């Protein structure tokens, strides 16, 4: 399942969706809205995306993971819009026969997602200011 959604992510359902009797291992990653970043306090995040390209890139990442590891099932859901502290912004779930494959594939998917999928977050700092997060720009 590859999905962009404005609704809270049902990570339990995502996890269920990758379970398989062919898999001995399921790894799930959740990104959650953290309050403190390098000493600054966040009160909320806003996520924007280029949806068509983001979905295409997520599908490419799933295909890349399947080419590298014996992935049984994989799912990636990214939330968009306004998120409060503690909310789940992204969920990645992957199942493989063995655990190290699942850990490696899960880490690959979230690492690459952060590099290539056109989604952006805007910080809402506690001082009332807002700021797009654009690594290296």
């Amino acid at each position, binding site marked *: 399942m590859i999905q962009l959604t404005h609704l809270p992510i049902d990570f339990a359902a995502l996890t269920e969706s990758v379970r398989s009797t062919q898999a001995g291992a399921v790894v799930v990653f959740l990104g959650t809205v953290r309050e403190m970043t390098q000493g600054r306090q966040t009160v909320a995040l806003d996520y924007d995306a*280029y949806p068509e390209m983001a979905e295409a890139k997520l599908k490419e990442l799933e295909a890349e993971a399947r080419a590298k590891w014996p992935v049984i099932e994989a799912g990636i859901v990214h939330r968009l819009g306004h998120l409060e502290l503690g909310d789940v912004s992204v969920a990645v779930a992957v199942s493989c026969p063995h655990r190290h494959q699942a850990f490696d594939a899960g880490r690959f998917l979230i690492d690459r997602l952060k590099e290539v999928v056109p989604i952006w977050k805007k910080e809402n700092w506690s001082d009332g200011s807002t700021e797009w997060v654009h690594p290296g720009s």
Partner: protein
Amino acid sequence: MKTVLKLFARARDLAGSPTLEIELPESATAADLRLVLGERVPSMQPILSSLLIAVGNDYAVPTTLVAGRTDLAVFPPVSGG
């Protein structure tokens, strides 16, 4: 040739609009598009070199042809996750 760019995140804020109609020379490349954009929206100059250009669902390299495309997008480095 006229074409419409999609803009996202800070690029959209700086342009003040989610799309931007620009005039591109025939056989324009992604490198040309970057220069045209900097002239059209001078406030983008500080981040111009870091902006990413997408043609359809793929990232462009400087030599990628963009003239005549109707699916161009420009945006800063991504920060999802």
